[in-house]
């Protein structure tokens, strides 16, 4: 390969890793649902309403909250969600 025929990659060289999604549950019966409030303004109202509706159907709900919308979730919250719930509902941005 001649030198002019190649460029150095300016990216983080992140390989495109295909991760298959988990199959959606056909029912929430017997599952624990997490709701994550990301601290976006009024996001708490939305997820709380959702949680109440789920609980009204007899579904176990666990509530989580990020300290700030500006930063990614702390590892402790990620760990808790992974360990404690089967399904999670998260609001994204606006």
């Amino acid at each position, binding site marked *: 390969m001649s030198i*002019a025929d*190649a460029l150095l*990659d300016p990216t983080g060289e992140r390989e495109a890793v295909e991760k298959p999604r988990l199959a959606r549950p056909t029912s929430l019966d017997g599952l624990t649902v997490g709701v994550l409030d990301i601290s976006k303004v009024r996001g708490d109202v939305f997820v709380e309403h959702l949680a109440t509706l789920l609980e009204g159907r007899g579904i176990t709900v666990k509530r989580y909250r990020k300290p700030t919308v500006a930063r990614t979730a702390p590892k402790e919250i990620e760990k808790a969600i992974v360990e404690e719930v089967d399904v999670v509902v998260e609001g994204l941005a606006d």
Partner: protein
Amino acid sequence: MQENGLIAIVKRDCPTCVMVAPVLQQLESDGGLTVYSQDDPGFPEGMDVADDTALDISYRLEVEIVPTLVRFQDGAEVERTYGWDRVAWESLTGRDDLGADLPAFKPGCGALNQEQDYLAELKIRHGDTPMVSRLVSLGAKEDAIEACFERGWSDGLPVVPPTQERVLAMLEGTTRAADEVLGLMPSNLDICTVEKVAINAVMAGCRPDYMPVVLAAIEAVLDEDYCLHGTLATTRFVGPVVIVNGPIAKQIDMNGKGNALGQGNRANATIGRAVNLAVRNIGGGKPQGVDRATLGNPGKLSYCFCEDEEGSAWEPMTVDRGLKAGANAVTVFAGYGLQGVIDDKARSPEELAQTFATSLHAVDNIHKIPGPDCLLVVCPEHEITLMQGGWDKARFHSEIMARMQLPAEDVMRGAHGMAEGVKPELAGQTVPKLLPTGLLIVRAGGGAGKFSGIIPGWTPGTPESSRPVTKEIKT
């Protein structure tokens, strides 16, 4: 390379080589001499000359001066001399009759393989570079600039294709090792090395001597306080505003005078662009991806200038930021746009402070309390008004902040028919437009015109949000 005997490296474009041509013919008659020519295989005439116009032999022998004469024994170099020095040549060859009619000594010339134009190519061809990034090969007819667009590496403008030669030259602009890790670049948190920054600096159009500034700016945006992930993911307008202080600004020809925030200066334009390209490419912060800005701002292509320290009576911003005057430093501030502050009439510092304060009230929305941190860019004529009134920068700062306290009723929800505003429970109180740490002041601009500017920031600079970060430049 030969097992035993002599190797001479010459070039026709060297008067000393031309002078020693008869000596080389003397040695050739003994046998065991190979002459390599760097520029003309027909020189010296009448001899059996090996072609080293590709300079590979010269590079492998690390020749610095021509002529160079090397003696090999059992495949290893045992002795060398360069230029013409009869005593040294006779000692090396074991003869005592070389160039009897020549002067005893004549210095040689620089070898072609040491010239920068050739050296970079030789290093690459011989694999002697510190770069480890993967090579992306282009098709035979593929346009390199278009290829960069197609691979998503561009900010929307053409980039300089990052060839190995260009990146190697860029790395010469810093003493820092190519594999030094500056941090993990949000949002992908991929490893950000000096080499990756150099590649993006090439693409931005930087000169190698800008590298220390670009690296300091990258270190600044990677600082936790800057909150790069948040400033990327926000729907607000901001991007990194890069302010350079210290003598390095002049050394690399930056502009802090007329049109400091405008176009036309390579260092201003490309350093800011390099930071944004690095964020985009290394961290993956792209519009329609992680970057969720509703409108963004044109400064997200590049937003970089230097403080006009020479033209100002004030201490540079680096002193406000805790460094000593004269320090080379970069400050990054998550900011957007430019709100002009025009006051042709003020002749007292009090009047001018009131103009700045009132203008600051309008940032984002006059009812947004507290508003975002702000960076004031004060023009020379306004600085003169302040100085003539006996105010220094600290006084100006404190007088503005004192004028930032607003009656809650004026900025309350529903006031002036506006839905935004502070809660009615705050009636009777005063509320601050800016946090106590929310105002930076820098001096820049042309000598004519009472035109300063406000660069509004992201949000109030609480620890959870973004705060300005200053890093000293390591040269």
